[in-house]
């Protein structure tokens, strides 16, 4: 009898697990479906895509349909993106320049700022911290006009610096790294001071290595944000030669759906690789930001 109850409980647990997994798979499928559309759509010809998406593009009655596998698979879109779209690569490298500039700037400015805010006591520290949080909460549109006026005044509008400089001073990275630097035990720092380490050495040799997780996760999240930012380039860049990859899709002519999907797929690769490379750091960083905020 006892055996039978145990078996029943095990069976129920297994059923519950199956249901949970099923629900997760169901939602995961929803989440992954855009990626699936990108991959399959990239391998479809424009004729096939036109047929499936005609209700969307030409306003016909009915709903768009999709196939698990292309009816007539083709690498035409891939070839076109790789060999016949220099503008795609031009914009990709624009994105990389913006992202690299912002991240580099944050390494030199946001990391010390977060360290100073986390480890030193000074007048108005709380006010500054709250100001950081306030600025972080503000959407870009609130800051856009003032940023535009400043950048215009100093003559940086319509240059990559117009996007890089505001990005360098992003408050989110400081906020995220602040949490990690605040966790560094004071005893370790005191010991280093006793051993004769100056404040600079404390930061570089003790604080930074210990807060590496926060730095990396902040930079990764910032990379993902920079790679897909749209509003800043639109607001501050007039010259199309400076446009980042995030503005490439609007440049694609109508009727080139397959090409657009394929270009999007290629645009997804760098963030995907970095996300996979730093997924552990990201998880910890996001958890830290979520728990301790």
């Amino acid at each position, binding site marked *: 009898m006892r055996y039978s109850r145990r078996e029943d409980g095990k069976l129920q647990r297994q059923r519950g697990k199956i249901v949970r997994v099923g629900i997760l798979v169901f939602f995961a499928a929803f989440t992954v479906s855009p990626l699936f559309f990108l991959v399959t759509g990239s391998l479809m010809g424009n004729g096939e895509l036109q047929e499936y998406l005609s209700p969307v593009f030409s306003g016909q009655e009915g709903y768009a349909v999709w196939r698990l596998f292309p009816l007539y698979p083709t690498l035409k879109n891939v070839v076109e993106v790789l*060999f016949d779209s*220099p*503008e795609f690569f031009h914009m990709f490298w624009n994105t990389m320049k913006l992202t690299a500039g912002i991240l580099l700037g944050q390494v030199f400015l946001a990391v010390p700022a977060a360290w100073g805010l986390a480890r030193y006591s000074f007048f108005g520290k709380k006010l500054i911290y709250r100001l950081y949080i306030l600025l972080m909460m503000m959407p870009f549109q609130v800051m856009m006009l003032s940023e535009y006026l400043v950048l215009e005044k100093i003559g940086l509008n319509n240059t990559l610096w117009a996007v890089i400089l505001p990005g360098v001073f992003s408050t989110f990275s400081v906020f995220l790294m602040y949490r990690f630097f605040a966790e560094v035990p004071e005893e370790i720092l005191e010991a280093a001071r006793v051993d004769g380490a100056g404040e600079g050495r404390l930061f570089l040799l003790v604080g930074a290595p210990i807060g590496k997780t926060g730095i990396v996760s902040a930079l990764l999240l910032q990379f993902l944000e920079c790679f897909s930012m749209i509003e800043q380039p639109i607001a501050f860049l007039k010259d199309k*030669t400076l446009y980042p990859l995030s503005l490439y899709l609007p*440049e694609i002519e109508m009727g080139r759906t397959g090409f657009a999907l394929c270009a999007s797929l290629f645009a997804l690769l760098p963030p995907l690789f970095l996300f996979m*490379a730093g*997924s552990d750091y990201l998880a910890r960083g996001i958890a830290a930001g979520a728990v301790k905020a």
Partner: protein
Amino acid sequence: MNKFWAKGFLILLGVMVFFTIVSRAADSFLVAQVSVENCSSKKIEHIVSAEALVGKNIEFPVITEAGLLVKAVYVQEGELVEQGTVLAEVDLEQLAEVTGDLQDEIRVLQLQNEAAEQNRALAQEEKEKQRKRAQEDYDKALKNQEEDLRRADEELQQAERAIDEFTAGGAGAMTQEEAAAKKAELWQAYFAKKQAYEETEENAKEAVTAAERALEDANGAGTADNSKEINAVSIAQKERALRAYEQMAECGGKITADTSGTVTGVLVQTGQKTADTAAFTMASMEGGARLLAEISKADACYVELGDSVAVKKNGTEYDDFAVTGMKQREDGGMELTVSSEEHAESLLPGESAEIRITKQSEVYNTAVPLTAVHTEQNSTYVYVAEQKDTVLGKQYFTRKVEVKVLEKNSSYAALEDGALSSENLIVTDSDTYLQAGDRVRLLEQ
């Protein structure tokens, strides 16, 4: 940090660098390279050119006597000859034979004429004799007629008188029956005389009529004989031929050109006899040179009578020609006659030369090279290269502009104003097929 994905990211960057270079190279290779020009004000010049053949001017024959053996021909077709130039030579021996034969023929005809003359005199004499005889017969018939009629009349009157006498009392002692028989006898005699008279009268008339006809026949025209006149005509012809032969013999058997000109036809051959037709045909130098050319339907509309024409032959150009004749062909083209009062010595019949007629239109404000104008179905258009800001910088793209061609030649087309401005860069040439919206690279501006 996951090293695998981190390495993958770096490799991805390397791949992106590689394809950046490749796509740039492919783009520069695939983008159409075009030549552009601005439209300009221009007169459209139409040059109608064609291959022309120098035509024969006033052509005349060189005639010689028929039947002469040609010993040598000294000229050929197309050759320019002066007056007196020996064109050909006939065989003198054969000429002498022909001349002798002709003289014999004339002599035969003369003898025939003499014989005919004598025969005609004899016939005339015979005819006169016959006429005289007929006249005599006629006179005699008339005389006989009178005599016969007089005698018959006398006999008839005697019979009448006998009846009258008997009726007046001649019966006497005769019985009634005898008197009646006598009277019937007299009347019978009377009727017999009367009939005899009538028969005599009829016979006399017939005799006179026969004599009259014989006389008329004797006075008739007789047999016509024109052989003498015919022979005289033949003799005259042969004498003319004889004189020509003699003249040719005096010239040594040479056939010469009467005037200067171009030999347009050689109708005799060495070793053959001359015919009744011309031995040579020649075109006169008078009247200048005349060329014949054919132009296409497309060019025909640019040519009018009186247009100046430049004629070029062997590097020499003659610019005083004019269009003097135009004839429509079935296919819409035109046959042109181009003439000048000079250059007959330079442009010989049968030679070919190039003619060129140049016509200029009014000034058009919008003229573009013809290579810039495209026609598709009922649409005529040009491509304009326009600069646009793109991700890769300022680039040129084609825009299709519908135009209306007012006039064109082989190089330029005049367009209706309004569609294009002088700032527009008109695509005049491309190294690949173009479509509206294509990105292009300018070769020159």
